[in-house]
């Protein structure tokens, strides 16, 4: 059993994903903002974080991922996001790089089936162990 932190302000999506992860036997905490997420990582010490890029009405999730990658380099991060629909072609082109464009293990564009997220989470936990 692992402790997963979900950072998402889409309540319905977060609830569905949390239910799937809990059904797979994990403990799940959900927070809706970047600030709360940073605080939760410090306080709860999760084993893995799944985070949305679109937080606080902007792209705060990207900064959160970079901050967490610096402060907790061993903590696996999965970005699960709707950001692609809102990024300009110029930004998308700038992200068309080999490796290192964002310090996360997996970048998943919504919609993602909950079972698929569970698989990705467990695969990363296994790799981290």
């Amino acid at each position, binding site marked *: 059993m692992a402790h997963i932190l979900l950072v998402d302000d889409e309540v319905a999506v977060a609830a569905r994903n949390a239910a799937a992860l809990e059904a797979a036997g994990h403990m799940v905490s959900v927070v809706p903002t970047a600030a709360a997420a940073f605080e939760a990582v410090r306080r709860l010490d999760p084993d893995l974080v799944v985070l949305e890029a679109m937080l606080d009405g902007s792209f705060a999730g990207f900064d959160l991922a970079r901050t967490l990658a610096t402060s907790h380099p061993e903590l696996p991060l999965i970005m699960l996001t709707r950001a692609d629909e809102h990024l300009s072609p110029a930004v998308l082109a700038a992200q068309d*790089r*080999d490796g290192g*464009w964002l*310090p996360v293990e997996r970048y*998943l564009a919504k*919609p*993602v089936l909950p079972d*698929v997220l569970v698989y*990705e989470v467990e695969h990363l936990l296994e790799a981290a162990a």
Partner: protein
Amino acid sequence: MSDLVVLLIAFPLAVGALLLVVRDAAARNAVVVAACAVVAVATVAAALSFPNAPAFFGLPGAVPLGALDSAILTAEAGLALFVVVVGLRHRRPLGPAMALAQLGIAAWLELTGRLNEPDPGRLFWFDRLTLVLVLIVGLVGPAICVHALGYMRDYQRSYPRTRGRRTSFFGLLFIFLGAMFGLVTSNDLPLLHVFWEATTLCSFLLIGYTRTEETIGYAFRALEMNLLGGLGFSVAILLLAGQPGGLDLARLTSGPAGSAVLPAVALLALAGLAKSAQMPFSSWLLGAMHAPSPTSALLHSSTMVKAGVFLLLRLAPAMAGSAVGSLVAFVGLLTFLAVSFAAVTERNTKTVLAYSTIASLGLVTGCAGVGVPETVWVGVLIVIFHAVAKSLLFLVVGTLENRLYTKDMEQFDGLLSRMRRLSVLALTGIAGMFIAPFGLVIAKWAAIKAFLDVPGWQGAAFLLVMAFGSSLTIFYWGKLLLKVLSTRAVAAEERTLEARVSRFEWAAETALAAAVVAVAAGVGLISEHVVTPYASAAFHAPPRTMLAIPPLTIGLLLLAVLALPVLALWASRRTDYDLTDFYASGRTASAGHRIGGALGTTRQVTLRNYYLEGIVDGRLVFRAGTLVCGLLLAVLVGQGLVSLA
């Protein structure tokens, strides 16, 4: 002709070298698309200039043979050095040892002057089998490279931490294409061996693309097994050097091998078995599935693994009627049976496709081993159908993987409702693989007919394996087919998934789907003008006609392959689903679809495929097959050693 063949080899090599230094994504896209167009046009030109009779030729212009010898030795040394460096860096000494042994053999032959001077006018051999392989490499290959432009962009975006670089990826794809063209056109065995080993190295580097510990392990497994085959190839050259005309592939395979060259033929067959992932070498291909999907489509289904069966088909007349031929046939058919069994228990779609690839190659291997014109006719047709349909399926699964982030067949529920266009493409590929009476089914029927004529108990054994194995293939294809075909109510946002698929991917997949239909329509023509004449020429006797298909039947065949995608399109228009609450006629035990069953058990109600859980352990069957085929090969090698002594 010779100019075109040299262009087909040299041009992709040059483009590959260029792509190794092009870092800008837009520039890379332009170079790849333009180069793919050139390769495809040159391929068609080469096919059109085929003189309708086997052609032998050398290098255009006056290239001194000494220079060619040194070039081959230099290339061998370069390849060996590379293996030594990476092998030592990763502390895997087995590969370096085998590479050095190969280099030692090449150098010894060269320095002692034992290598027969190759006939300068017979370095290359272009006959109808070459034509088939050149068309596959030159038309399917570019389609996959174009597809990879879109696929790799999304792949790199979704794995931001991967250490792979697209510069090396595309460079290697093109270097591989050049080596592959060289492999299928070479007639001089030392020249063929260089290209053979070059494809092994490309495969190694592409499997280890992400450079994680896991993929590096799989890359080395593939390298070591293929180098073992390559070492067999080298020893075969050593045995043949000094025999009159021995290093000339066409002369070697012009009829049943005498006892003097049979051990060398057996070693070449060993190289072919390793390359086409026949048991006991099958596990490398399963590991290779961890490479990005375009690699699986190009190297590990449509071309490189085909090089193995290509060599076996070439050797078929030499192996015919010998113990070597029988052993090769047994290995091929046992592999077919064992991996078909294993595939039934697997839910990772890419692994199922890999098993099915090994199974199809196993059939071709079996056909080559039996070694009569009829089975070789079947083998070549399977090579054609499989190259087109399977590469399409690998590309579609690659696109799915980048959109749905999964290769698990069970997550493809309602695919037709979620991703309509992609489902139709997948269905075309699946139809090409197994829907009667199209494609492989014709080939399998003809194989059964041919096996009936194999004398003695062997024919009966082959027939049983064939019938039973084929029923298993229907089982696993049926499961995949119905997952893709299933419809359900989907959320509006799920219908937007397809909008993100790149135009590179659409273009490549549509082209390959068209190729599947074209091959279906043209099966009669292909048989009449390419495959039948080839089998006749190889055995100096025509195959008893398997296929004299009247135009009406061809029309019906086409209808059969198109019916599935067209009906699916019609079915996918439905959106009015009545969603009702879950009900099973039992006592609800807990939330999440659990019901109380008989004798106090609690059962989970699921809507999923059956993988024979608790009945068949796929991995166990796989290991058993590997063991049996390994023993068979040990017998083969032992016999060879005895006959040499």
